[in-house]
C-alpha cells in the first residue's frame, strides 16, 4: 500500500495543511518508509480480538455532567478582544460579509 503524491495531497487537504511540492514529495518518501515498518502488523493473527480504544484498569466510569467551577485566573471577557451577546468575536475573514451590515 504505497503512498503516492496524490495521497499526500489528499490527506494534507483533509488535515488542512498547505504543502509545497518539494515538501509533499519528501513526505511521500518519509511516509512510505514509516509505513513499511507497519506492515509487520498485517502478519499478526488478530482473529477474535476486539480492538481497544483505550486502556483503563476498569474502563472510564460515567460521571455526572457537572463539576466544580473551573478556577479562572482572569475574567472570561479577557480571552478575546471583544464579545457580543455572550459570544467571543473572532477576527473577520476577508471573504465573509460585513458583520455590521449583516446585523
Amino acid at each position, binding site marked *: *500500500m504505497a*503512498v503516492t503524491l496524490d*495521497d*499526500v495531497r*489528499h*490527506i*494534507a487537504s*483533509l*488535515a*488542512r*495543511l*498547505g*504543502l509545497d511540492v518539494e515538501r509533499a514529495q519528501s*513526505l511521500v518518501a*518519509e*511516509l512510505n*518508509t*514509516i*509505513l513499511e*515498518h*507497519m506492515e*509487520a*502488523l*498485517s502478519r*499478526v493473527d*488478530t482473529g477474535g*480480538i*476486539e*480492538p*481497544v*480504544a*483505550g*486502556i*483503563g*484498569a*476498569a474502563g*472510564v*466510569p460515567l*460521571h455526572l455532567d457537572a*463539576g*466544580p467551577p*473551573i*478556577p*479562572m*485566573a*482572569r475574567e*472570561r471577557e*479577557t*480571552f478575546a478582544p471583544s464579545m457580543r451577546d455572550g459570544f467571543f468575536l*473572532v*477576527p473577520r*475573514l*476577508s*471573504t*465573509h460579509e460585513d458583520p455590521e451590515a449583516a446585523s
Partner: protein
Amino acid sequence: MSRDAEGAGLTEWSAGELADLVTRGEASPRAAADASLDRAAAAGAGRDGLNILLYEDRRDAHRQADAVAAGRDRGHAGPLAGVPVVVKDNIATTVLPTSCGSRILEGYVSPFDATAVRRLREAGAVIVAKSNMDEFAMGSSTENSAFGPARNPLAPSRVPGGSSGGSAAAVAAGIVRIALGSETGGSVRQPAAFCGVVGVKPTYGRVSRYGLVAFASSLDQIGVFGRTVDDAALGLRSIAGLDPLDPTSAPEPVAAYGDAARGSLAGVVIGRPREYFPPDLDPRIRDKCDAAIDELRSLGAEVRDVSLPHTGLAIQVYYILAPAEASSNLARFDGVRYGLRIEGDGLRGMYEATRSSGFGPEVTRRILLGTYVLSAGYYDAYYRKAQQVRALIARDFAAVFASGVHLLFTPTTPTPAFELGARSDPYEMYLSDIFTCTANLAGVPAMSIPIGRVDGMPVGGQLVASHFDERQMFAAAFALERRLGAGARQ
C-alpha cells in the same frame, strides 16, 4: 556545594528536607526560589545556553513564595512548602506561557492552572519556570522544539532525551529537585534515563490531565521527575488522585509513596522479560541491567525470566495510534481559537496557512500519518489492526502479573544519550521508545531510575508494575537506589 539554609546551598536539600526547613521557619521560600533561578542562570539554562528553560518570571516566583511564607506563618505549610518546581511547557499555568514548544501557541497564556499545577501550588510548591520540549511532545530528543534544541547538562553535545527533555535536564542541572513532564510513549522515562534522574509515569488515570494539552488521549499521562526516588515520590503524591474535571482520572486511593522505603524486598517477585534483552542490545547496557538485577536479588527479591511476546510490535502500534489521535486533537489549532493566525484565501486558506506556518516538520509528519491511517480504505489495515494488537500487548502484561510477578525490570532505553543531530531518520528516532511505549499502551505504571554510567553517560533501569501499584514500584526503586547510590554515578 555545601548544604545551607540560605543562598545557593538551598538547591542541595531534597524536596522533603527543604519543605521541613521552610515549615520550621529555618528557610525562606523566596530564598529557595532565588537559589533555583540563580542556579538556572549559572548553569546557562536559558535559550542562549542549554536551552532547557523557555519561560521564567522571578517576580511571579517571589509572589508565589511570599504567599507560601504567609501561609506558613498562619500555620498552613504543605508537604512541598517553598519547593521550587519546573513544569513542562504543555501543562497549563497562569502567568507563565504554555506554548507546547510550538510556534502555533507562542505567547499563549492559559487562563487556568492544570489540576496537577494547582495541586502543586496547594502543597506549597513554587513554579519557577516552564521547560523546553519537543513540539506538542512529539519527539525523543527535544530537538523538535520550535525554540531550538535543548542540550544535556551532563554533556552539552548530546540530547537530554524527550519529549520532556527540558524538565529532566532542569533536575539534572540541580535547578530543581522536582519537575513535571508528560508521557505518551516514554517522554518522562527516556529523558530521565538520558539525564541520570528518576522519572515516573503513573498508571493511566492516576493523575488528572485537566490542563495537559492533549496529544494522544488514550495514552497521555502527566509524570514526575525527581533527583532521587524520594523527590519523585513526594511529587507524585502531591498531584495524584481523582479530579472531577478529568473523566479519565480514577477514584483509586493514593498511597504515601515515600513510606514505601524499606529495606528488604523479600517476597517480591520481579520478572525479567526476555524481549527487552534482545541479542543486539548494547552489551554495556545489558551489563548495567544485570548488575541491578543482581542487587534486586540480593535485596531478597525473586527474579524470574518472563515473556511479553507482542513487545516487538509495540513501536508499530504506538506510531499508528498516537499520530491518529494527534491528528484529531491538533485540529483545534486552526487560527481561530488559539495563538498564531496567518491570513489566506478564505477560511480554508487561513486554516492551511496558519497550520503550515505554525506546525514544525515532525508534527506535520505525524498529523499526515495519523490522517492517512484513519482515512477510508486504510482504517482497517492500520488503525483497527493496531487497536487489536494493543489489546494483545495489554494481555501480555495482565498475564505476567496474574502469574504472581509483582514487578518487571528492563532497560529504559537501548542506548545512552546520543549526539545532537545523530538521528535524522524518523523511524530510527521512533525506536528510542522501544522499551517504554509498551507501558503506555497497557496503561500500567513504570519508572526509570539511574543504574550506572557508560562512557560517563547515565543508564536507566525501568521498573514496571500492575495498574495502580505504584507503591510496589517505589519500594523496589528506593531499595535499588540505596544500593547503587542516588544518581548511580559508577
